[in-house]
């Protein structure tokens, strides 16, 4: 596969066009300048969507989940679909920030901060959905293991409790990783800021000065955090997949589910990364930092994970046929030709087929086509979860109980609200914190030497 040459520069790995450390500070601090009209409009759009979600949620609290179409046999529908969708989105961030860090993959440097922020806000969004879904939100803490008046403890053999631990850990560790990585960069912004902003960044930089002693502990700690986050990211979506796979429902209890879900999560996450950073780099005028080289690499990751998904979809159908299990076969037949055929084919076309376009270098480096493909990926991956959850629940072992569910206004309202909530946090982050990692880019640019050459 032809690769795009890295941009010409002075860096060890030829990644950064900006030539000196001072240029990096200036360009990244420049992204924190007063917002443009376009940014304000985007933010207002996100807040408006979020308000739609809030109003819908209040109606659900008042009247109950009936508005969301909950009735036998479908009690997991759009909210759990969207929960899995947002958890999955987060995975690309951790892949890029932690796994590629351990692999010493240099191209991650320019994009990892934005993907890490995406991870935290996506998992924050996902975390709202189980609470919305349970109906009586005011007693959500029953999920936690605390001494209660009935002397009962949670059932630790249930995947739903595993999920509580997995998602809480993922949110905490991702947030820690993001904040930890931000500290030296916030200190750099502090030293360029003035007035009340300087005071805020002074507080946020927690006394960071970049001393040899601080770097000695920091560098080690960052390595260990990456090493801890790597198995975590693989475990989280595996645990989410076991919410389904540990049950005995046709279409759900497959041993392929954990790797299939992890590949899908990374695929969807990179799709969202592309959707976010293609316009963002332009809006923040950092096109020279996030270049065609980075997009080419992101597109290759998309192609890899999309191909794994293609294989997984094929294997699911093969196993259903090969199992001679009539329930399994019926479920998969109905996914392709039953009442949810439109959702099934949307998922297959958007995920398995559209990703194959990325074999072509011209498509991988054309930002318009990449952006369009990323939208297809977002749609396809939401539908994947919808198909898995709703089609299996609607056609289980007892045909007289079969029923269909079509999303209601309350489903769309909460879904729109989740995009608003996510977008709002991401936009606020991008304008107030360095969206490109100053310190890591500087680490890749050799400092001047009085004797010339490299160390």
């Amino acid at each position: 596969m032809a690769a795009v040459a890295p941009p010409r520069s002075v860096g060890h790995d030829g990644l950064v066009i900006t030539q000196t450390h001072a240029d990096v500070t200036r360009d990244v601090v420049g992204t924190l300048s007063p917002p443009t009209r376009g940014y304000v409009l985007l933010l207002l759009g996100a807040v408006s969507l979020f308000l739609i979600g809030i109003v819908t949620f209040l109606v659900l609290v008042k009247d109950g989940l009936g508005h969301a179409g909950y009735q036998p046999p479908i009690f997991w529908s759009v909210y759990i679909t969207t929960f899995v969708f947002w958890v999955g989105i987060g995975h690309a961030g951790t892949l890029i920030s932690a796994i590629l860090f351990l692999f010493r993959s240099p191209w991650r440097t320019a994009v990892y901060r934005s993907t890490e922020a995406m991870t935290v806000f996506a998992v924050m969004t996902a975390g709202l959905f189980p609470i919305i879904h349970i109906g009586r939100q005011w007693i959500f803490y029953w999920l936690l293991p605390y001494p209660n008046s009935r002397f009962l403890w949670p059932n630790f053999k249930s995947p739903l409790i595993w999920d509580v631990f997995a998602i809480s850990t993922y949110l905490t560790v991702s947030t820690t990783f993001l904040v930890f990585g931000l500290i030296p960069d916030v200190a750099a912004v502090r030293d360029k800021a003035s007035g009340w902003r300087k005071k805020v960044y002074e507080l946020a930089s927690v006394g960071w000065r970049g001393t040899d002693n601080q770097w000695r502990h920091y560098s080690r700690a960052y390595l260990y955090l990456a090493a801890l986050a790597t198995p975590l990211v693989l475990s989280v979506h595996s645990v989410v997949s076991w919410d389904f796979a540990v049950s005995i429902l046709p279409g759900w209890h497959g041993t392929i589910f954990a790797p299939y879900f992890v590949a899908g999560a990374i695929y969807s996450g990179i799709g969202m990364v592309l959707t976010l950073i293609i316009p963002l780099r332009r809006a923040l005028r950092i096109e020279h930092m996030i270049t065609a080289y980075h997009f080419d690499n992101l597109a290759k990751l998309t192609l890899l994970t999309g191909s794994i998904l293609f294989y997984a979809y094929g294997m699911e159908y093969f196993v259903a046929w090969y199992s001679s299990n009539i329930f399994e076969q019926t479920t998969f037949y109905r996914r392709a030709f039953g009442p949810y055929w439109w959702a099934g084919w949307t998922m297959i076309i958007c995920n398995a087929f559209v990703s194959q376009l990325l074999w072509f270098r011209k498509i991988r480096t054309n930002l318009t086509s990449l952006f369009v493909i990323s939208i297809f990926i977002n749609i396809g991956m939401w539908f994947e979860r919808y198909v898995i959850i709703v089609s299996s629940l609607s056609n289980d072992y007892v045909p007289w109980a079969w029923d269909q569910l079509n999303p209601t206004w309350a489903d769309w309202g909460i879904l729109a609200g989740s995009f608003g909530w996510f977008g709002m946090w991401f936009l606020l982050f991008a304008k107030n914190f360095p969206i490109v990692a100053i310190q890591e880019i500087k680490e890749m640019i050799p400092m001047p030497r009085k004797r010339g050459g490299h160390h």
Partner: protein
Amino acid sequence: MAVRKTARGARRKPGVLASFVHVDAAADAIRALRARGIKGLVVYSAAPNHEIEEALDHRVSPVRLITLIGGLTGCAAGFGMTLWMSYDWPVLVGGKPIGSVPPYVVIAFELTILLGALSTVAAVALFSILMGRRGVPYDPKFSDDTIGVFVPATQDLARQVEQMMHSAGAVEVRYEGA
């Protein structure tokens, strides 16, 4: 004489603060100072640098030990909590043993990661911020494109240190009094 204090209220340390734009010059200066037996150097840089690290020759950070202790504590807490709670109020679920270790591996794994990560960050806060040296002069350009070397020195020694810094290639050298 009034004692000057830093913004964080720590007593200001007297010494020589030198700025370098060339990394090899800074490394030369550090090696020369260490060869003279001068201790307590503080080196500022905008990003970690291997040449500076080699010149300073620090021991490996003890953060790894804290990470290990945190991770093991999380693992033990995960198994301990799940098993104790299972036997504290035994409920038969799906015909499985009351204390089923395989499903509890998930909880123990998550808590291993959680406490391992949190203790790592706590260790950095402890070693580099709470136990870090205070009152050492700083210049905002050290977070930009300049390497700073602070040498604790009384006024008598300062002249000698300033000379060493200049000959190593410092672009700016100044004495910071107490």
